[in-house]
């Protein structure tokens, strides 16, 4: 899931300087699970922002609403009256959610309440780690389900580099486990150590974000006539 963290209140206050009636919109999916932008977190941010503005002598009215997902039109439609009666929206969704709201309410400023960080999983209560950077050409099958592209600091496909100490990566700060150590142990436990004998060529980064912002189209599910140009860039 997408993991994000709330921006400092001072940042949120700064972008709202010219407004006195705004809506804080939360998202009920990824950012609720990572405790950054759900209903409760929106409430806390609203309290803090109202207090900060009152101390500055410029009170602000904040309407709080959380929708199921900010990346789906069906849920965003419910926000139309909210957008109408407020001067601006602060979205507590991930970067995709913020942009989805901005596109659907083009006359309203839409600001970001979160810093979107990575695709990851919950390791233990309130601890999330990055697992996937979305490179577009998954090699997890060859490495026992541990991604060297994301979790090796040097992005090596033919590791290890030999610099690890006591299973920790030599360059990671804060310290992280050596991904190749984990890959070796895993391949050993599933009996696929021979995978490491294969030499991988340098990674082609074109399918990743490095090749430009990506679009995925699944023609078999489209409703428009086949071959018709899509509205997406």
């Amino acid at each position, binding site marked *: 899931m997408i993991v994000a963290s709330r921006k*400092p*209140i*001072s940042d949120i206050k700064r972008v709202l300087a010219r407004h006195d009636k705004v809506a804080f919109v939360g998202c009920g999916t990824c950012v609720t699970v990572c405790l950054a932008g759900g209903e*409760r977190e929106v*409430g*806390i941010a609203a*309290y*803090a922002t*109202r*207090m*900060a503005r*009152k*101390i500055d002598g410029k009170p602000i009215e904040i309407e709080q609403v959380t929708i199921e997902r900010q990346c789906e039109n069906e849920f965003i439609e419910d926000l139309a009256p909210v957008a109408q009666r407020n001067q601006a929206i602060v979205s507590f969704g991930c970067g995709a959610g913020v942009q989805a709201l901005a596109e659907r309410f083009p006359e309203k400023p839409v600001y970001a309440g979160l810093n979107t960080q990575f695709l990851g999983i919950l390791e233990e209560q309130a601890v999330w780690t990055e697992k996937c950077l979305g490179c577009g050409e998954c090699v997890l099958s060859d490495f026992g389900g541990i991604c060297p592209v994301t979790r090796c600091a040097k992005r090596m496909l033919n590791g290890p580099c030999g610099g690890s100490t006591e299973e920790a990566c030599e360059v990671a700060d804060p310290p992280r486990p050596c991904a190749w150590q984990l890959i070796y142990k895993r391949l050993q436990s599933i009996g696929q150590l021979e995978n490491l004998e294969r030499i991988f060529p340098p990674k082609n980064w074109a399918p990743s974000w490095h090749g430009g912002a990506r679009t995925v189209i699944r023609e078999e599910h489209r409703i428009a006539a086949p071959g018709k140009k899509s509205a997406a860039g």
Partner: protein
Amino acid sequence: MIAAQAQAQPAAAKGECKIIAFCCNYCAYTAADLAGARRMQYPPNVRIVHIPCTGKLEMDHVLAAFERGIDGVLVAGCLEGGCHFMEGNLRAKRRLEAIRDILEEIGLGRERLRMVNLSASMAPTFVQRVQEMIDTVTRMGPSPLRTPAPSAPERVGTGGLGPVVPGAGD
């Protein structure tokens, strides 16, 4: 219900600081009760809110109290390791630390919120902590979020005898 109680203002002379003390049922509230039974004197500027465990306290409750103009919040729970619900006080400690960071960031000051730990028999400690909190908050000054109290409505009528009802008892 906690939110409703937190909205009530403690008794205090005009201009004096006001604090709320959220006290857990098993230790802090019992200690406060014991202080009362022993007729221990402490300032009336504190409103005690009885909660089942400090772990039940939501961050919203504390923030709402500050938004309504309370000058300080004291959260009193069991001694660490002695929480009736095992780790409620430990959860509260972390949540309150996050709120202290918010209070510092918005300019209210982190010292306006404090968590203390004590056991049910520690009535003198409870009194001492309340006094410390009042001293701290008095030193910091009233909360900039205080709303002025609504002015009392003017009395109408005949100089204290109440309105005259025509034809009644003449």
